[in-house]
């Protein structure tokens, strides 16, 4: 589904709000996710990142507004929602691994999709190799470290070949040793398969290293990017109380330079030899 400026929009949120215990926790007038891109949602704890991912992954229904997938509005009442949900995958901030082997965990999504058991071993081994955990298929999942658990959760999501992969704070519980490897895996998934990835993080520099687009989220609202603020310094409050971003002179040139810088950074992860 192309939008008005010819971009391939895969997922779109329109006028989405979500309330919890009578308090608004998310207010997104518009957000579109393009196919094959990596998006970073940055914000402090409690800013609504996980709620946003849960709405995008169709796990929760927004209080108001509409979610569109490939241009079609989501109907939460029928089975088409489950089909669409099955084309996405989400890994939690603290991934839950089922009380079985690594193989049993990774094959879970295959079982849910009725993939024959005889295919599992090859698919699981391939996924483990991609995340750098080759040979761990028979290990008890609960014996893994935090970093390994996160990688197994990503492998578990990978085997179902999702159109969109949501990663909730993928490096939050990972030691420094595994963070770089994890970022490389994320870039490789996007580079090799063209999988759209939406990840949340509270680390702005990490978001810029990994993502093509970065959305800062604050108190449930998307706010202008910090990089924009840094280079423009022009967020003005209007009388209606809303903040408006005013583009400075040379803004588009600056954006082009930033995009180039990010692309080079991502290329660096795809080819980590440098």
């Amino acid at each position, binding site marked *: 589904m192309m939008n008005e400026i010819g971009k391939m929009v895969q997922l779109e949120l329109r006028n989405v709000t979500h309330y919890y215990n009578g308090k608004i926790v998310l207010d997104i007038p518009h957000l579109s996710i393009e196919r094959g891109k990596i998006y970073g949602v940055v914000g402090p704890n409690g800013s609504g990142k996980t709620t946003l991912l849960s709405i995008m992954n169709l*796990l929760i229904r927004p209080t108001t507004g509409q979610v569109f997938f490939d241009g079609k509005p989501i109907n939460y009442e029928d089975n088409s929602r489950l089909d669409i*949900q099955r084309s996405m*995958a989400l*890994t939690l901030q603290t991934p*839950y691994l089922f*009380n079985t082997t690594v193989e049993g965990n990774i094959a879970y999504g295959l079982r849910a999709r009725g993939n024959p058991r005889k295919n599992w071993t090859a698919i699981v081994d391939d996924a483990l190799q991609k995340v750098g955990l080759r040979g761990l298929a028979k290990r*008890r999942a609960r014996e893994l470290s935090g970093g390994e658990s996160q990688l197994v959760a990503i492998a578990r999501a990978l085997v*179902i070949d999702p159109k969109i992969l949501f990663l909730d704070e993928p490096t939050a519980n990972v030691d420094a040793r595994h963070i770089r490897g994890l970022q490389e895996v994320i870039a490789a998934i996007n580079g090799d398969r063209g999988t759209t990835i939406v990840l949340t993080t509270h680390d702005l520099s990490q978001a810029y290293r990994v993502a093509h687009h970065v959305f800062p989220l604050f108190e449930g609202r998307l706010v202008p990017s910090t990089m924009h603020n840094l280079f423009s310094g022009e967020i003005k409050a209007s009388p209606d109380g809303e903040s408006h971003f005013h583009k400075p002179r040379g803004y588009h040139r600056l954006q082009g330079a930033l995009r180039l810088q990010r692309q080079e950074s991502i290329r660096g992860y795809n080819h980590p030899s440098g």
Partner: protein
Amino acid sequence: MEYLVDAFGDSAQLIFGLDREIYGIVGRSVFFALTATFLAALFGVPFGFLIGTRRFRGRSGLLTVMNTLMALPTVVIGLLAYGFFSRRAPLGFLDLLFSPTAVIIGEFILSLPIIANLTVSAVQAVDPRAILTAKTLGAGRAMTAWTILMEARFSLLAAIIAGFGRAVSEVGSAMMLGGNIRFYTRTMTTAIALETSKGEFGFGLALGFFLLLVVFSINILFHFLQVKDRQ
């Protein structure tokens, strides 16, 4: 003291002499209890699962009733069931009184609340992320439910073992509904009560030994499964 030594001697003779009646009673008791536990698990696990995973009006009241039923005296169950199964009672035409089926029904009623209650606890103890993870990986309702049960499998097994323990060791309802008929409805507990009152302490002791052996065997099996799960 001599009385006790003689009793132990008699019981050893019955056990090692492979006394047909003793082993018949043990086999029958285990069969009744296993059948009753199987049926109670068949109903109790899904029932406990539903109560453990759903929120509805009157849920806490239902849980209170279920907790109360766990402590229900076995003779009360026997009494109530007797009221239904005796010849002039509503279910008298089924001719179940003093039959193995009646004993199994009594034991089923005793095991059911235990299995259902412990299933509620087992299901509630499962990490909520398990459900969320199942859903994010595309599991439908049935697969999500199965996943929860599998995550709680050792607690569920413990619930079923507790149900079996209650069934195999009860005496009140088996006595009232089975009538303690030799070679037909006599169980370990009813036989212990009868033989001891007749002065056959050695016979009672031999059956007591088997009763303990059954309970120990199950616990050892459970422990073995737990260790295997951790490996």
